[in-house]
């Protein structure tokens, strides 16, 4: 996703995006209330351009439409639940699509959650969007882990796929930054409100790899088990 994705409101409101960008922007709007608001206003504005083109329809149209209407069933007023997003780990998924899926996952709709938690996930989604959309964003994949990093931003994000099992009770997943000078804890891996591994954003300075280990609840000072994830940082 472009870092200047916010400027797409106009193109979106005029249907001037191609299909991929359109979906991309719709996912962005789901996490960006400013873009959503502006887009609604610009759609109303574009509708004026449409109104200015109003013209008398062909005389036969009314009868055709009403005939078709009389044999057309209306949609149920209840929208179906959103289909579950595929995991990012599918190889064909592009970097950008992966980020969007991630944002969608982080934002998993349908589960009520405390506002505070939602705010936190929203803030996280924004950080992730910025990293993945950075001009110099690079991706490394290893096993069930993926790290997208931007040296320009000095930040990276670790994504653990659904294949990484949730820790059993009494255990936590702990992430580690590995550099020449040693191993430093990045903290415990959080879960999103939809029960997935939350992305973890960390500073890239000096970091060559990210590891994740299963540790006793609350975490350890240093890793005590074999990593379930070990991903290089580009």
């Amino acid at each position, binding site marked *: 996703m472009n870092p*200047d994705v916010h*400027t*797409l*409101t*106009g*193109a979106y*409101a*005029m*249907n*001037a*995006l*191609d299909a991929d960008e359109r979906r991309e922007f719709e996912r962005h709007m789901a996490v960006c209330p400013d873009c959503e608001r502006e887009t*609604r*206003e*610009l*759609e*109303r*504005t*574009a*509708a*004026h*351009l*449409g*109104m*200015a*083109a*109003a*013209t*008398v*329809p*062909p005389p*036969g*149209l*009314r009868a*055709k*439409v*009403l005939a*078709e*209407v*009389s044999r*057309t*069933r*209306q*949609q*149920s*007023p209840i*929208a179906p639940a959103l289909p579950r997003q595929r995991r990012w780990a599918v190889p064909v998924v592009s970097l950008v699509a992966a980020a969007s899926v991630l944002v969608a996952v982080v934002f998993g709709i349908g589960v009520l959650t405390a506002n505070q938690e939602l705010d936190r996930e929203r803030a996280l989604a924004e950080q992730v969007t910025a990293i993945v959309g950075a001009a110099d964003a690079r991706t490394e994949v290893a096993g069930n882990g993926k790290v997208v990093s931007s040296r320009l931003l000095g930040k990276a994000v670790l994504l653990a796929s659904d294949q990484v099992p949730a820790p059993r009770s009494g255990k936590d997943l702990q992430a580690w930054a590995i550099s020449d000078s040693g191993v430093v804890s990045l903290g415990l891996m959080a879960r999103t409100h939809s029960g997935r591994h939350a992305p973890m954003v960390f500073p890239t300075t000096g970091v060559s790899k990210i590891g994740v280990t299963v540790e006793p609840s609350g975490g350890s000072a240093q890793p005590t088990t074999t990593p379930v994830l070990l991903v290089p940082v580009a």
Partner: protein
Amino acid sequence: MRDRARAVSQLHGPAGVATLTPEELVQQVARGDEAAFGQLYEVLAGPIYGVVLRVLRDQAQSEEVAQEVLVELWRTATRYAPDKGSVLTWALTVAHRRAVDRVRSAQSSADREDRAGRLDAGRPFDEVSEQVTARLEREQVRICLKALTDLQREAVLLAYYRGYTYREVAELLGSPLGTVKTRLRDGLIRLRDCLGVA
């Protein structure tokens, strides 16, 4: 928008139909009321057909697409969300999108190249004033379009009335992609402020 909807319905419809707002009509349509849909048709058919015709430039195809759009509105009236915009905005957004989909679909690609070929000589702003019956709306939009810079206006008109993507607009105008993206946005924002869209 609502007042203009009334104005348009009075332009197009039989006398006396415009007693309910489009929003009220849609509520009834959502309960399967075909007579209410007949009234809604009077309000929406002119703008829908007009915008589709403007993009497609072919009467037969435009009638087909307008019919699809109107039936889609009937089908989906059950899920119309007033907070996302007025009925007219909803209808015109759907209509414009369907017209653009049609123009970008494979079967009309040849025609599209033809249109692109003719475009160099085209003067979109003049064409805006063609085929217009919603006089009030037309005048206001016309005045407000003049408030845009040349590049903003050309980009907006090519994207909206020709159904081009911003990439195509950039190609046609020989401007960088980023510039066109920005002009589409700030052009529409200027138009929004001039038209007093809340």
